[in-house]
């Protein structure tokens, strides 16, 4: 509630004082611990290693090299035509060249199995803004979106805070590797209805965060059919699609729509960004790709609140249009992530820890349920605190991802050097040895 006038201080809105930003959850608390005592290879070897931030630093050298070698697109020196228009350019359509480059890049990542029309691309300052914007457009305050669990903790904030929209979870469990089932979809829908929430859509992340796995074709088709039957939207957040270890394993909902000749496609919207695949979260580049004309028009207008700097668009347009670079980057990035993944899985296995079989993303989904005193959220958080404070690793507890089974943790592996990852694995090994002896 906003502070009332009796007090001398002037009141704030409900949005401002609400806790829906979720930043008091363990997910973010671990980051604070890291900020206070960050690990450093030489200067702070006993610090907290950050394994809770899904950032991709494995291919940064490729970016740097490209920029050193290709100045023409990025300079505005004598004779370079674009600057004047560029600095003034604030059209919410975005630079055509950039949209074209994004469309091509998105096609490339999907192995050319889906086509993207640059005029359906709406630009936003990051996928965070894209998800919020779509929610504003697809749902009214008090409506609901169905989201499979476990899901990215940031959704609680991005989808709900200013929009006033609810999230109703689609419960998934380890019995089938946390895949979405028709029963779970229907159950979530009924649950929302029983609470008098109008369901406006399903929002999936594919590849999944935090599972680190792609959604199978049959499951995608089921979800799409479900959305069609209920006449609701489907938002597919495909922000990790370029981080699939093998290109053929990722099926985009765009591919399925294409094979169906785009029948019933006006309910489908794809979110993408360069923060994960290209490791450029600082540049704030996100997109909404919608098959619905009205959504495209509305999203474009609303994107006034979250435009991408024209300078950034210009630079990236040049980079993403360079087919040679993008092909090499995508391929190398996949290889390096795959190698990292193998490294961490092996290391964890040696320590006696199993993970969900993954094939994508910047993290793995680790099963520590055998270590829990009892299969409860409290026990999971106790274990999490121990790992944070004693082992000094910041990993994300499954409960902050709304996982229905306690004991699972998301562990990021792409935001550090290999040496640091070795150190982290050693610490885990030691920790597990100690536990065994007890």
């Amino acid at each position, binding site marked *: 509630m906003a502070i009332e006038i009796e007090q001398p201080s002037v009141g704030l809105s409900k949005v401002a004082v609400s806790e829906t930003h979720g930043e008091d959850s363990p997910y973010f608390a671990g980051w604070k611990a890291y900020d206070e005592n960050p690990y450093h290879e030489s200067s702070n070897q006993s610090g907290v290693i950050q394994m809770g931030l899904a950032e991709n630093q494995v291919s940064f050298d490729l970016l740097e090299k490209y920029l050193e070698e290709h100045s023409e697109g990025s*300079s505005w020196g004598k004779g370079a035509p674009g600057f004047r228009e560029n600095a003034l350019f604030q059209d919410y359509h975005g630079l055509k060249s950039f949209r074209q480059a994004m469309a091509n890049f998105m096609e490339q990542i999907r192995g050319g199995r889906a086509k993207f029309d640059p005029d359906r691309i709406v630009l936003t300052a990051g996928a965070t803004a894209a998800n919020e914007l779509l929610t504003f457009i697809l749902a009214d305050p008090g409506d609901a979106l169905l989201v499979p669990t476990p899901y990215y903790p940031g959704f609680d904030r991005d989808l709900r805070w200013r929009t006033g929209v609810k999230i109703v979870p689609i419960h998934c469990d380890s019995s089938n590797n946390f895949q979405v089932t028709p029963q779970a979809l229907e159950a979530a829908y009924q649950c929302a209805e029983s609470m008098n929430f109008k369901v406006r859509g399903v929002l999936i992340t594919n590849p999944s965060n935090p599972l680190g796995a792609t959604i199978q074709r049959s499951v995608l088709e089921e979800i799409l059919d479900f959305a069609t039957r209920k006449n609701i939207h489907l938002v597919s957040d495909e922000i990790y699609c370029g981080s699939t270890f093998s290109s053929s394993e990722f099926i985009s909902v765009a591919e399925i729509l294409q094979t169906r000749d785009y029948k019933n496609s006006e309910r489908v919207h794809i979110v993408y960004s360069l923060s994960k695949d290209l490791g450029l979260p600082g540049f704030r580049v996100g997109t909404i790709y919608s098959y619905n004309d009205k959504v495209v028009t509305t999203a474009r207008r609303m994107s006034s609140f979250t435009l991408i700097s024209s300078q950034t668009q210009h630079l990236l347009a040049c980079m993403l249009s360079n087919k040679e670079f993008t092909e090499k980057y995508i391929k190398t990035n996949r290889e390096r992530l795959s190698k990292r993944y193998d490294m961490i899985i092996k290391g964890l296995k040696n320590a006696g820890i199993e993970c969900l079989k993954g094939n994508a993303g910047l993290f793995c989904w680790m099963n520590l349920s055998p270590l829990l005193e009892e299969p409860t959220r409290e026990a999971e958080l106790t274990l999490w605190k121990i790992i944070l404070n004693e082992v000094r690793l910041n990993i994300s507890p499954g409960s902050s991802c709304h996982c229905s089974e306690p004991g699972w943790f998301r562990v990021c592996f792409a935001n550090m050097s290999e040496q640091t990852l070795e150190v982290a694995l050693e610490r885990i090994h030691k920790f597990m040895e100690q536990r065994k002896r007890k």
Partner: protein
Amino acid sequence: MTLTRSIQYPNPEPEVQTRKPGRATAMRLIVPLQGVVQGRGGLIFGSLIPCALFYFLQLYLKRHRSSNSRSNPPSPSTSSPNLAEITRTSSRSNLLSRGLIGPVRISSRAMSIAKPNDSPYYIGLDKASEDPYDRISNPDGVIQLGLLENRLCFDLIAKWMSENLSDSMMGREGGDLSISGITTYQPVDGTMELKLAMAGFMSRVMGGTVSFEPSQMVLTAGATPAIETLCFCLADHGNAFLVPTPYYPGFDRDVKWRTGVELIPVHCRSTDNFILSITALDQAFNQTRKRGTKIRGILLSNPANPVGNLLSREMLYNLLDFAREKNIHIISDEIFAGTMYGNEEFVSMAEVLDSENFDKNRVHIVYGLSKDLSLPGFRVGMIYSFNENVLAAARKLTRFSSISALTQRLVVSMLLDTRFIEEYIETNKKRVQNMRDLFVAGLKTLGIRCADSSAGFCCWADMSKLIPTYSEKGELELWDKLLNVAKINVTPGSACHCIEPGWFRCCFTTLAQEDIPVVMERIRKVADTSTLCS
């Protein structure tokens, strides 16, 4: 979680009202009842009969809509207490039956935004961008006087870019402009380097009489999200802000769209040179409160857009007193602070707060580089607040509108080049003043006078003598003629909610000197025909 029965998916059927009708219908009875009872007429005739009619009308519509949707793609049900919305849904389902858009529903918020832009402000901008004037290649094109951009000092900025970026955007050998360190996640509310640089720049352009604290800044991708974010922080859905008219047309979007906050105009008059009066503010406050809407603050732009005048120190004191008395906020959009010409001095809200013992918690300033440094494409804006709680909330909210780290680094580099900034500020001031003088003089020869102004990129011109009837309709007729016959895009006062018809906002900073006679000639042609006809 397994279900014991096998799921039988129902046949696709239209989504008819599945809710229990009781509550919803009761609401539908109560709302019209209230409205009618407040009106005149006997209780029985005045309320019962219209209510009964309403009730039956709704039943009829409900049945009609059900049968209608059976033959068409299903439209999602809305059970709303508002009769108007039911009608809207009906017509929407008619649209659907024509197959213009898919059957799946988008939110009511989005529906209102999806409508074609019928505001002259946007129509004019579109027309000008479709057929832009160019002295050589398109001399019959539309001359853009409706977009507040400043192109007068572009040469200076382009020169700086070419000298400092040389062969690579990245600067020399990983120097100041390399990409290392900026590709990763940054503080969402902006880097400290940029905040420091902005503090210095703001202080300089505002006359050096006030200083700004980086810790009180939240950076945003342009001033547009800064205003919206502040509204989210200070007001709930259904609350309102008072705003003096005429005001920047974009406020309607920035404040109202997604927040559901209202804007209550407080009309200013030409007799006061459109300066706000506290009396008018007070009246508007009381009237709004009477009808049950809570006022959360005052939104103003200082220097004013579109008039271009300044608020005096005394007026700022009065506003602060008023805000304190009513316990509301003040949002001061100072984005044009660095566009002063002439001899008047700009006084920022921040300066007044520094000097006197006012409650700072209610004051929030919006700023950005789109006007003062002519870099609207780069999206650099700011919320500057004295209220820790607002800052805490805004810091979290700005993740939806953060500035690209690449751009932040470039802008820091530019702002720290004090020699360049000095040259820019001085030259810009001269050129803007020169342009303004020529433009205003040109209008004067046509018998069109402009309001007194000391800042900004436009003049606020009184063309009331040229409009066929002294009304908004007459004003729009002239606007239309100016756009389609004279091919000049100016912003009509009604788009700025001005209470007096006939005023037009004309931006002169996108012109070259040689274009001014062309503009005046075109206006003259229309003026002549207008005076002939009236």
